[in-house]
């Protein structure tokens, strides 16, 4: 797991090299290629709203471009990029909270409607149920679990994206799985075959 991030950081040497050579445009093009997907997935996990995640991803990338000259290599490039993206997400969440607190049910309903429109078409029943259960998890567990599977089960990558220790990610994952298993037990759906069968 550590290796994934370590290789990621070493891959960023090319971008840092371009920055040192003053080739900002080329460095940003490489950065865009490598990180746009990761930033988008991070935004999706943090914001729960695909349309908003798209806007915030764009906003984050523009921020990164503007601040690229000031990157001083004190932190890994990926850490720096994720920190900017997380901050943009937090600002967006703050704006959304203000909007929801100002509005009566109308705006909140509209926001939910947007989220619903963006959702993928209903898949298998089990997957749908699992998705609902994941959505019911406490926020920090939910976003950790989402990013873990989005990023190919890399706890190190998730830790870097969320800006927390890897141990915390592992604890959150353990708690999230335990909570999901408990919910399945309560619903009498804890037969492993049930979940393996739907895999076929």
């Amino acid at each position, binding site marked *: 797991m550590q290796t994934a991030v370590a290789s990621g950081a070493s891959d960023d040497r090319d971008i840092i090299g371009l920055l040192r050579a003053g080739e900002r445009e080329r460095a940003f093009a490489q950065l*865009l290629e490598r990180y*746009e*997907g990761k930033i*988008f*997935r991070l935004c*999706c996990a943090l914001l729960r709203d*695909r349309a908003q*995640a*798209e806007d915030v*991803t*764009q906003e984050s*990338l*523009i921020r990164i*471009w*503007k601040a690229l000259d000031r990157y001083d290599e004190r932190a890994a490039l990926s850490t720096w990029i994720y920190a900017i993206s997380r901050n943009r997400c937090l600002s967006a969440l703050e704006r959304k909270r203000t909007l929801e607190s100002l509005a009566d049910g109308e705006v909140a309903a509209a926001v939910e409607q947007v989220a619903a429109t963006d959702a993928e078409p209903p*898949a298998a029943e*089990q*997957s749908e149920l*699992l*998705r609902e259960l*994941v959505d019911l998890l406490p926020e920090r567990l939910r976003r950790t*679990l*989402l990013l873990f*599977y*989005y*990023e190919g*089960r890399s706890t190190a990558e998730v830790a870097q994206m969320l800006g927390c220790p890897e141990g915390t990610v592992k604890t959150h994952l353990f708690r999230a*799985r335990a909570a*999901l*298993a408990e919910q*399945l037990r309560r619903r009498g759906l*804890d*037969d*492993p*075959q*049930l*979940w*393996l069968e*739907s*895999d076929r």
Partner: protein
Amino acid sequence: MSGSERIESELERALDAALARTLTPPALPIGLRARVQAALARGTDSDAELWTVRARIEREQREQLAELERSYVRLRRRTLATLIGAAFASGTAVALLLPWLTLRFGTYTPLVLAGGGAVAGLVLAAAILRERRSLQF
């Protein structure tokens, strides 16, 4: 491994597989990169414009400050020169007029000189005040 532990472990594995199947990464929005690049192009243009305006305003401000500084120094020099000139002129005038004043006013000469100086000062102050008032809107 006991039966319940084995089932537990199997459930975990099955859940992990089901989660991996369900929580697939969202597809990147179509045209996101193009939109970012377009926004950056717009932003770069407006940034450059902003920097030009900012640089111009800063340059103008620097020039105005320098001009104010120069005016202040000029004013101080002029004031000093006026004071020295006035002192010399007064001294010369008094030196020239003293014999005549002594003959005419006797022991009151110092009072007459002080009174004359005071009147001249008041007249000068009134003239300056009048000039300043005429400058106001």
